[in-house]
């Protein structure tokens, strides 16, 4: 269980501090120089939902480390950074805002528009369905996600895709 905690924290801290999109092949994880010292404390509990009271161990350090890091920065310098990875230039931007009397908060102000893709529609027997999909989501999405094609082609495919309407009656 200690190993789980040791294994999960670098990954989580990397996403909080250094991992920068877009390329997954080029992504960064923390090196020896950058890892903080770490201590594990075992708290024995009985989880009533787990089999024989068992509880998972790996997720523990994974989820709270990003908010903990953001809170630590807020505690230290009073700047709220609402995005990861938290880069030094974001903190500096927050400090400048604070200096100029604005709200020391950096990050996106709204949820981005995301293309969630076409839903797969399967009608129930009561609706007259036979277990097969009533639509073909893949045909509609042709060109949008494919690795081939240029940025321009994909843009056009995406435009066409979002202007089309669902055929669900």
């Amino acid at each position, binding site marked *: 269980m200690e190993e789980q905690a040791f294994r999960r924290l670098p990954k989580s801290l990397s996403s909080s*501090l*250094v991992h*920068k999109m*877009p*390329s997954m*092949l*080029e992504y*960064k994880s*923390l*090196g*020896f*120089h*950058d890892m903080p010292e770490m201590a594990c404390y075992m708290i024995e509990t009985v989880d009533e939902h787990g089999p024989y009271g068992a509880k998972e161990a790996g997720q523990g350090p994974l989820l709270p480390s990003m908010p903990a890091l953001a809170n630590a920065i807020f505690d230290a310098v009073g700047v709220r950074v609402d995005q990861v990875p938290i*880069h*030094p*230039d974001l903190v*500096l931007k927050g400090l400048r805002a604070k200096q100029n009397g604005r709200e020391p908060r950096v990050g996106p102000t709204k949820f981005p528009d995301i293309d969630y893709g076409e839903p797969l529609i399967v009608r129930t027997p009561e609706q007259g369905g036979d277990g097969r999909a009533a639509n073909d989501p893949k045909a509609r999405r042709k060109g949008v996600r494919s*690795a081939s*094609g*240029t*940025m*321009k082609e*994909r843009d056009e495919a995406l435009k066409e895709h979002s202007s089309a309407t669902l055929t669900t009656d």
Partner: protein
Amino acid sequence: MLRLPPIKLEAPDTLQAAAQLLAEGNTRLVAGGTDLWPNMKRRHQKAETVISLMAIPGMDNIGAIDSGSKGIRIGATATLANIIRDDKTRQRFPSFAKAVASISSPPLRNMATIGGNLCVDTRCTYYNQTEEWRRSIDYCLKEEGKICWVATKSPRCWAHTASDSAPILCALGAKVILVSSSGERELPLKEFYVDDGIDYLAKQPDEILTELFIPGTSDDAHCRSAFWKLRRRGSIDFSTLSVAAAVWTDDKDVVTRATLYLGAVESAPMSVAEIDSVLVGNKITEDAIAEIAHAAHKIARPMDNTDFEASWRGKMTTQYVTAALREVAGMPQLHMPPRHSLKVVC
């Protein structure tokens, strides 16, 4: 997994044979291969024949220029790890050893060579990606494409110089020897680089970088230099800004000569000429350091072509030039992250 394209690998055991093979065309040189192999796997660089220099005996020697001088000569295929281990280099040019020790990680330093680091390809966010990634943006100016994605209206490529040894060697006044099948020439290192992301070296395609000279002057005891670099992590990452300063003083601490170079800002190491007019004939003071740092910040205009926000990298120029010059002057450091005070670990 990325794979190499089919190539023919030659490993001649004399320099003349290598120079002759290179002159045949559609060829490339490889030494440690830590830059070329990944680049070929991503299809940045193409060649039918790759010529390895590692079989040429004596090309990795590190030694004194001559017995009376304090300068050193380093063969182009000397590995970075061997340069750090070399006592003469560490004692005579500690900031050069520090710069070399800061490059990448120990396994890569065991393979990578100083010649390769001096010739390392310029880097850019829109270039150092896989073939599929680059195809999806219709490539860029550095390779097949028509647009520089860093500055879309720019007629030139803005990829930045990635060598960490280049700025400090330029500051120390190093020279390189270039050998081709038709002859040999010597070039000051600062003239070896051209401020263009695509043709970033003054080296002709048929020339081989064989040796590096770091001159040791008679006032060597009074030469102090410093190297600082900015990157996201304490190892592995390429620098997003590097600062190299060298200052020569006389017995009374009056500066006789001073050089300052910035790396990873332009496509070639960038000289800050103001250091000469501000420092020469004077002692190093806090005011003088502030003036030089301001001048460096004014001319350094990093583009958005690597890690970190470009404007922030520009602002950090002031901090890092100040840190380097304070180290040269022997003043205590202001608040800087401890991991940036690079230690030479052999």
